[in-house]
């Protein structure tokens, strides 16, 4: 830049004009001032990378003072919330697969008898380790308290069991991602993140562009119906979405060696629901936005919470309940569970149901709003 001819008054003229235009565009102004504030408060309080109170199921085949003490010890560590007494191993497995619990403790038969005999019985702690960061701290905590947890109960003739190694052997099974490889969690999740980003933005822009360029007026004067326009706009992008899905799946398989335990065709089928849900968001935005800039801003307004509150970047269960409630509304939250569930856990349709209907509900609501707001006239 050549500053030799820089004129301060002309420069001020441009600055003033920008401020006037900024003030005129209310939505943009709001997005610049209000939204960062909301997000600061929202994300500041919501995000927590050291999640506590993780839902835990207990299957106790040995109802003894020792097992009760151990369970109470878990509870007191504040990392574990015992929410379920399971009746058998089968139920434990189901609870982990369905994402109902993060941890499951199995206390085997004869635990207390073997413990008293000094045989160091096994005690099984199973974790859903699809997201390694969600379980890391909790596993570290339980390992730390194991050696001394039963000391108060080991009195009298059992006092010799205290000190040194723990009187039982804690076996930790990290399911679905035993080696704690972050990519296994991140790469499938990225599929959802990228689809959210591109699908919402592309549709929001596609319809707003028609209005901004004046072509909408022409379109409306022809016999074409709103349903035909909306559907016609959506279908090409469903194709684009599937190209993205294919690329990410290929990369996951050949570049990142992500395990694909479950049915890939099932995943490909269910992606449809997620893609359409995001396209519906885009359409709704496009009926509200006055120009492409606003459509873009709305996309980011939707994208940021999707990224931060869905469990993609930070453990979902680390967030306070109100933030989890917001997260439950977002389709990405459920899609992450679906994609991780299929690829890492090998879940089938039955286990995925709890996450499919919220996505379907979201889609139905968004589509209704979008179609209601899209008008056939210019009124």
């Amino acid at each position, binding site marked *: 830049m050549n500053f030799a001819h820089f004129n301060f008054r002309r420069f001020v003229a441009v600055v003033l004009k920008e401020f006037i235009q900024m003030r005129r565009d209310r939505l943009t102004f709001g997005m610049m001032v209000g939204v960062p504030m909301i997000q600061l408060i929202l994300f500041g309080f919501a995000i927590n990378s050291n999640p506590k109170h993780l839902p835990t199921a207990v299957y106790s085949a040995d109802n003894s003072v020792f097992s009760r003490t151990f369970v109470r010890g878990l509870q007191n560590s504040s990392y574990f919330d015992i929410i379920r007494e399971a009746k058998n191993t089968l139920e434990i497995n189901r609870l982990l697969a369905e994402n109902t619990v993060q941890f499951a403790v199995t206390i085997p038969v004869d635990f207390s008898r073997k413990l008293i005999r000094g045989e160091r019985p096994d005690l099984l702690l199973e974790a859903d380790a699809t997201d390694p960061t969600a379980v890391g701290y909790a596993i570290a905590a339980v390992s730390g308290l194991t050696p001394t947890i039963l000391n108060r109960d080991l009195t009298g003739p059992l006092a010799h069991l205290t000190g040194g190694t723990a009187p039982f052997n804690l076996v930790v099974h990290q399911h679905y991602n035993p080696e704690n490889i972050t990519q296994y969690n991140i790469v499938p999740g990225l599929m959802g993140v990228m689809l959210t980003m591109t699908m919402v933005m592309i549709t929001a822009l596609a319809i707003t562009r028609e209005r901004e360029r004046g072509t909408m*007026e022409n379109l409306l*004067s022809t016999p*074409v*119906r709103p349903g035909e326009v909306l559907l016609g706009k959506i279908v090409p992008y469903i194709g684009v979405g599937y190209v993205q899905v294919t690329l990410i799946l290929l990369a996951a398989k050949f570049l990142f060696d992500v395990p694909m335990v479950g049915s890939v065709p099932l995943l490909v089928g269910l992606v449809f629901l997620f893609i359409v849900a995001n396209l519906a968001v885009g359409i709704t935005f496009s009926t509200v936005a006055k120009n492409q800039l606003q459509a873009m801003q709305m996309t980011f307004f939707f994208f940021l919470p999707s990224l931060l509150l869905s469990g993609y970047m930070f453990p979902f269960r680390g967030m306070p309940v109100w933030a989890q409630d917001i997260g439950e509304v977002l389709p990405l939250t459920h899609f992450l569970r679906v994609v991780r569930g299929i690829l890492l856990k090998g879940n089938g349709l039955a286990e995925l149901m709890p996450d499919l209907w919220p996505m379907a509900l979201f889609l139905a609501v968004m589509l209704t709003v979008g179609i209601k707001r899209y008008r056939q*006239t210019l009124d």
Partner: protein
Amino acid sequence: MSANEFIIDVRGVTKKFGGRTVVNDIAMQVRPGEIYGFLGPNGSGKTTFLRMLCGLLTPDGGSGHCLGYDILRQSAEIKKHAGYMTQRFSFYEDLTIEENLDFIARLYEMPDRPAAVERSLERLTMTARRRQLAGTLSGGWKQRLALAACLIHQPQLLLLDEPTAGVDPKARRDFWEEIHQLAADGLTVLITTHYMDEAERCTQLAYIAYGNLLAKGTVEEVVRSAGLTTWEVTGKNLHAVADQLRGRPGVEQVVVFGATLHVSGRDAVQLQASVKPWMTGEYRWQPIASGLEDVFISLMETAADNFK
């Protein structure tokens, strides 16, 4: 079509935007094959009225038929048989000429689409430029493309919203040749314009200001009904004379045209009394027929007093 002899037959058409009446109780009858000119100042409601005729806006009041279909309930049918050319170029700049025409032909479900597109290209004499992007066309060519696209489904009614704004005189003349040709073939045309020479080429005129219809009829009828008397003045220092005449009783318009001055007013007697002092040997005064422009400006100023 119904037995109605009119292509457009509406009355009481009214449109309000947020409490402001943009089109107020307008009635209009247009016969087949007419070129109906729609005139009025900017923001007078011309575009709004056209949009209501083709179903882009819903009237708040009024009733009637367009192409035999009810304007309130059958806008979908009207759209199939009418062509609407928007004020601003509203085809896809990132599509070629041919792709634009093909798209529109598909929307109207043309039976033999490739032939229809070919016909349009030939009429446009754009066959050689068919693969050119519409965005790279000049203003005149864009206007021709828009017209061709509006005609591709062979509509019975053509609604043109300031089609010649920003187009050079030659292209404008060619455009009007085309319009007259189409009207001769039976097409009805409703056209808005600001150009007086274009208004004079219409078979019927309507003048609208502040949403109200102020005058309608043929050019002669409109001029006659205005009852305007106009004097042409020649001489020296006309600007000074013009300044002195303005504001005198009966003097409604004083317009300088280079070497002549037009002075007009509706009250011929009062006007003559007011200009008498300047009717000296220095200036030559001659009564002339009032032009459309004089009439429209007079109508507009009267309307401003009555409706503003």
